[in-house]
């Protein structure tokens, strides 16, 4: 039956195949088409998918792509957030508002609960990022999720650069980087044995700059701390850290007010801000295009511990 479903007007420069656009697809069109293809393949082939959603920019873009992939239907899976308990309040508020707006179910795996009842112990360095693995794996098992979408991008880290788009995890949630399936053409093989699960990375091939250009093109809302704002900060390990309940300067370290923004958003205790005047998407794009420091190098203390920090966390079942 033919329908006359009204399609909301949306300014899309060079949408694929629109009259007047050039024959070649633009970078963002190609990346968007690939991501939507992956999202649809996984939903078609798995029983119980879920998407990791933190309110960070990569997961926001990934969720936006899911709304595109399944339009005019609702996004056909719940979202899962592993909450360290040390997240920025404005990011949690953004997370809740987004889930509400899209009519999704939110599952929260709380690191704080695990610490409170003794299943996990606080680390000496105070960072809770490595502590996320256990609550994550428990949430997967409790909900019976057989696949989890993650917003990991291969350009973030050398271990991520070797990750497949569909990546198998054994029954202990472990990644075996030396024994990955070959991934051919756009044919994704998500078959797995009972107890094992799969991580799917639909935005694997996006760079930080692609993400920002797409945010601009699609007019995607982000938590405000991605844009330059004045904040009370202190210097720690060569990074600017916000003062807050979970992030206090050491003895004798002065706090100052600076205009900063965040390039990545994670645990307050290990995510640094960068000095920035970029208070609009266009200014952020200009800043990212000319930066001389990688995004994780600039802002994530957890990846500075060793060259293999990300690889070791991933092997244990991290995102």
């Amino acid at each position, binding site marked *: *039956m*033919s*329908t006359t*479903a*009204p*399609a909301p007007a*949306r300014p899309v420069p060079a*949408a*694929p*195949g*629109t*009259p007047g656009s050039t*024959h*070649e*697809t633009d*970078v963002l*069109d*190609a*990346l*968007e*088409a*690939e991501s*939507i*293809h992956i999202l*649809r393949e996984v*939903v*078609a082939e798995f029983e119980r998918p879920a998407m990791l959603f933190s309110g960070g920019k990569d997961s926001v873009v990934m969720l936006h792509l899911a*709304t595109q*992939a*399944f*339009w*005019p*239907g*609702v996004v056909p899976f719940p979202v899962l957030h592993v909450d360290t308990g040390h997240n920025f309040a404005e990011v949690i508020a953004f997370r809740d508002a987004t889930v509400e707006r899209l*009519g999704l179910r939110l599952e929260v795996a709380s690191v704080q609960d695990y610490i409170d009842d003794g299943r996990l112990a606080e680390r000496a360095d105070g960072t809770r990022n490595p502590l996320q693995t256990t609550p994550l794996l428990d949430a997967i098992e409790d909900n019976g999720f057989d696949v989890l979408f993650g917003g990991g991008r*291969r350009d973030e880290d*050398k*271990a991520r*650069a*070797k990750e497949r788009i569909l990546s198998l995890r054994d029954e202990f949630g472990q990644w075996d*980087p*030396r024994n*990955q399936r*070959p*991934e*051919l053409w*756009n*044919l994704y*093989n998500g*078959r797995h044995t009972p107890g094992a699960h799969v991580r799917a990375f639909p935005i694997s*091939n996006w*760079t930080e*700059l692609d993400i920002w250009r797409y945010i601009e093109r699609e007019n995607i809302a982000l938590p405000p701390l991605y844009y330059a704002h004045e904040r009370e900060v202190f210097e720690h390990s060569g990074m600017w850290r916000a003062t807050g309940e979970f992030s206090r300067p050491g003895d004798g370290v002065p706090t100052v007010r600076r205009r900063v923004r965040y390039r990545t958003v994670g645990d307050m205790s290990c995510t640094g801000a960068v000095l920035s005047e970029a208070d609009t998407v266009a200014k952020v794009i200009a800043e990212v295009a000319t*930066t001389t*420091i*990688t995004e994780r*190098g*600039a802002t994530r203390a957890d990846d500075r511990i060793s*060259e*293999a920090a990300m690889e070791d966390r991933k092997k244990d079942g991290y995102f």
Partner: protein
Amino acid sequence: MSTTNLDTAADTAACDEAARGHAAPALGTRGLFRFATAGSVDDGKSTLVGRLLHDAKVVLADTLETLARTSAETGFGGGDGTLDLALLTDGLRAEREQGITIDVAYRYFSAGERSFVLADCPGHVQYTRNTVTGASTADAAIVLIDARKGVLEQTRRHLGVIGLLRVPNVVIAVNKIDLIGYDGQRFADIAADVARVAAGLGLPTPHVLPVSALRGDNVVERSAHTPWYTGETLLGLLESLPTRDEAAAAAEDFRFPVQLVLRPQGALAPGLDAEAFRDYRAYAGSIAAGTIAVGDRVTVASPGAPRRETTVTGIDAAGVRLDTATAPASVALRLADELDIARGDTIAAAGTLPDSSADLLAQLCWLSPAPLRPGAAVLIKHGTATVRAKVTAIEGRLDLEDFGLLPAASLELNDIGTVVLRLAAELPTEPYARHHRTGAFLVIDPQDGNTLAAGLIAERNSAA
């Protein structure tokens, strides 16, 4: 290809011809360009990739700092404070410890008008597996040759795989040119060997260029040591070669494997008018080849059912209504007639789809340590359809010396063989040589779900 002394202008032109390849490259377009690198052990592939990234100035300051620190620690960097550029891509702990690359790594950078996705494919143990993986999506493949060694058996293997997978642009980097004293004659000899092998394989004429990954000659910067070479640098080539879709897919007939049916009754996205979408029904997928326009007549092929014809009444891209769409766009099609269409079906330009068949002649790149024997029960994933299949015969395996077919009782890891498959359902299969996306399939182990082989459908008329 000239193999004589390169002092004359004519010979220099012959060298340029090698660099440019047979077909004049179309002017590069803005967009995503995917390329893969393949090489043998120790021919400096990781260093070449590192050099490319370093000299293209896409390595950021903190990565360089880490590189300098690790170069000094591991000692692979020559110990004189120079950078071990290979460390830029050797990502896993074991790789850094052993100084080798284990698994395909992906790198991203922009230069000029293009964004590049590089699949860096290791050259040792599982070389075929890794090269097949990287080459399956590549617009171009770079094969490294050690200038001191020339064309090796592994070079022939890599070129064989690249030819089989129909990578549209082949670039041969004759590396370590500094170690043969920038000898133009030696380079010309290697280029002639390469041309001979490529012709034997039916490859497009490769672009051959002399480089030193270690010293940076002709990678991003033109070398002063190779005045006899006037072709493009490696980066210059990558910026100008045509992509696979520019080269082929747009000119092919429309093919659209259905991924899923969008029928949102009761689960409409918030904010949409339930009344307006009451009867909404569309077929979601990504365009595998060609172009579709509203009003086009299409054929629907479902495994085990008669063909049906209908008309496209709408093309939706997440709420944007399009008049036309071209590969590789992800869209949803609305059709004039209410047909029973499901995942695994194919929508194609009317009258262009070959008859479906349950018998398949195909080449397999065998990627599993467990050998394939006749009679094996497998799963075939073709487009969005997954069907059971039986290997009824192994016709032979490819001889990488002369590219003839040798008799074979089984296919072992890294073998490329020709097999006959019997499918549990008829599929509209097309030869890979002419249909990059719809001519490919995966062979999957029905027990543990692992991917066993990359499958390439052979020409039907040779399947008697």
